[in-house]
């Protein structure tokens, strides 16, 4: 395959997955306003109703008679927020930590990276359960927990790149002119990390979504009446035989969301690779 064709193919897939992500975001934000139903209002007259056009119960209702369309949209909101905030946490801590360790080098680098190794060795689920038990479940802790594992990977990748960049001649040229470590990090190291960080970020977002779904599925994530896609899937699994839409609809949306992020990440990586090699 020729290089220009590969780039075109990447761009096409990229725009395809970007369109999918925009669609999901619009769905998550607009539906609760547009629908006459409330996601938290129970209606015991219409429990476990199959998808119908009547009263805009297009996705049906759950075992408490709540409208699944609105609940799915609200769940998608929470999932997206968790994913974005957790990724942001890992971005800020990971890039800062990794760049400083890589640029400082020597003993500082060794100590900082051994801390990362130690955290890496802790069993994550145990860590989260401990957090949840000690501090009770809340949103903030979820971000902390998910961000706390993602930034470790980010820090390692950024450190490796920084070590390579540190020896580049344009950094030497700045040092000769008396540039401080802060200057070099801010002007030369971090901007040149942008490519790999953006790519890695699109790959950690689906990871964060999966972890959130997993925690919610275990009952450690968001609490009723708040919901997330993972919580909805967990609840739907109880009614798999009698009301399969409760599992299939939020599950399908989750799968689609993950697919979009994964595609975007893969293709972004290809695009940056092409640029690097030229």
């Amino acid at each position: 395959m020729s290089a220009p064709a590969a780039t075109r193919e990447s761009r096409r897939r990229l725009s395809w997955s970007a369109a999918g992500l925009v669609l999901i975001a619009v769905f998550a934000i607009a539906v609760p306003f547009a629908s006459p139903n409330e996601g938290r209002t129970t209606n015991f007259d219409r429990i476990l109703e199959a998808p119908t056009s009547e009263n805009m119960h297009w996705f049906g209702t759950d075992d408490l008679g709540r409208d699944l369309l609105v609940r799915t949209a609200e769940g998608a909101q929470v999932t997206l927020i968790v994913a974005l905030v957790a990724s942001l946490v890992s971005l800020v801590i990971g890039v800062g930590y990794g760049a400083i360790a890589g640029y400082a080098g020597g003993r500082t680098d060794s100590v900082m990276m051994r801390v990362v190794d130690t955290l890496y060795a802790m069993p994550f689920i145990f860590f989260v359960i401990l957090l949840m038990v000690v501090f009770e479940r809340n949103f903030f802790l979820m971000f902390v927990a998910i961000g706390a594992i993602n930034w470790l990977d980010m820090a390692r990748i950024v450190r490796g790149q920084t070590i390579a960049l540190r020896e580049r001649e344009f950094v030497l040229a700045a040092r000769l002119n008396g540039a401080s470590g802060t200057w070099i990090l801010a002007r030369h190291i971090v901007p040149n990390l942008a490519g790999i960080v953006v790519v890695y970020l699109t790959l950690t977002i689906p990871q964060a979504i999966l972890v959130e779904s997993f925690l919610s599925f275990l009952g450690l994530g968001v609490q009723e009446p708040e919901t997330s896609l993972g919580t909805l899937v967990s609840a739907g699994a109880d009614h798999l035989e009698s009301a399969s839409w409760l599992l299939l609809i939020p599950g399908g949306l989750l799968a689609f969301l993950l697919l979009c992020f994964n595609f975007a990440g893969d293709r972004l990586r290809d695009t940056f690779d092409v640029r690097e090699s030229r």
Partner: protein
Amino acid sequence: MTLLSVRGLTVRHGNAVVVDGVDFDVAPGEALGIVGESGSGKTQTALALLGLTPGSADVSGSIRLDGQELVGATEPVLDAVRATRIAMVFQDPLQALNPYLRIGAQLGHVLEAHGLSTGRETGERVVAMLDAVGLPDPARQVLAWPHELSGGMRQRVMIAAALIAEPAILVADEPTTALDVTVQAQILALLDRLRRDTALLLITHDLGVVAGQCERVLVMDRGRVAETGATRDVFGAPSANATRALLDAVPRLDAPGPAARDAPGLLAAEGLSVRYRARRGKALAAVKSADLELKEGETLAIVGESGSGKSTLARAILGLVSPAAGTVVYAGQALARDLVDRAGTTRRDLQLVFQDPAASLDPQMRVSSIVGEPRAIAGNPATAGEITAALADVGLDTTFLDRYAHQLSGGQAQRVAIARALIARPTVLVCDEAVAALDGTVRTTVLALLREIQARTGLAILFIAHDLAVVRQIAHRVAVMYLGEIVELAPGNELFERPRHPYTRALLDAVPPPPGEAGRPAVLPGEVPSPLSPPPGCVFHPRCRYAEDGCRAEAPARRAAGNSSVACRRAEELDLARGRA
């Protein structure tokens, strides 16, 4: 009778035509040189001959080897032809050898893959071939890994691998460009001796190499054949503009350079030594007690082969590496060893220009920010007018302000790097192989630019280079380094006409004579010893043709004589003014 016949060869990458209708023939045993600047399509032509162009390239026209058509041939057909009929030697032997295979296995594979030999016979042929290319102790070296060999030895192995299946034609793409001049002379002599009735297609930008090696030459320019004919005729009476441009850009070793001048000293290294820690607690002495003084407004060149310590010495002067002993004196004051301990103003007074202009510019920054950075760091940001003026000084107009580094050619990028170095108004500019990566014509203009800036601003230049002809053009004085020691320091014209150290003589003799003139580079035998275990006595004695017992016993100190100095016991009795004995 023709062996290889190329007609209308065209190579396209997307919309770009990189080779455009090239015709040529090679007779059996003939040596044809292909020369041109980078981007002229000479390497693409070579790759097309072996069917090695990237998959995205579109190759058309005709390549007939012994009447067999190679354009459009299937991979199995090409596989059968490669190595046995046509073989290639690449520029960088480190990249062309598989690092995970012992060299004997790599050579043996060539024979066995083509069913030319098996078992014990393979081993014997490999050893014989390695012996023929001059690898010492070949029976043991078959088990060596590529990284255990020096660059010159690796290139010998590459040549052995290319010739072991006895091809009818050998394609050599810049086979000596990555090598030092003395090693280049060895490899060229080796190619000449070994190929006998093998035809040679030698691709190079170095006209001197072609002139000594090839009967016929083909000049390429922007994908087309600009001129072809007997080497002597083409270089003696060029008819194409491209040929004339190439010839004009060849720096001449015998053209007088600038005369040494008297000026007060500005920057000096006094007894500067640099050591690196090597494995098993050994220390590697990269620079041994170097004394050097750069005068105001002069260009002092430091020349030497790779591993001579010339770059390390420059970096120690700049404070980028910390010396083990000695001091750097600038404007009468001793400077701190480490860059971080030096005052901002003295830092800015000493600026550096690197070899690879693309790597020395931040890919994420625009030219205006790159050039303005030294002033921004100093907390005294340059105005738009000052940046424009700095670019104008290096011959670039305002259209370059918003470009990124990858949008610049090599020469433009190096001009930007020079502008960045000069905007802080330094008094000393250190050029570390600053023109080595540039094409002939571009190199000439950048050298002219440096001279012009020096004449205008009185800048002192410390010019690190391995190319002696370039050095002669620009340097007032020249220091020659070998294995971490300055063995001779003299005014440029004096050093080139009457070298006093045998190593300087050998370096000069290894340079191919200018195109169009008779003569061959003379070979300095042996290799630079490992700096981990330097020879006792004079470091050059194992390779020196004038060495005597005293040289082995005692290291000579560098002694001054007039305005030059030399570290050779026999300097007074030897007359080295005439070379190429």
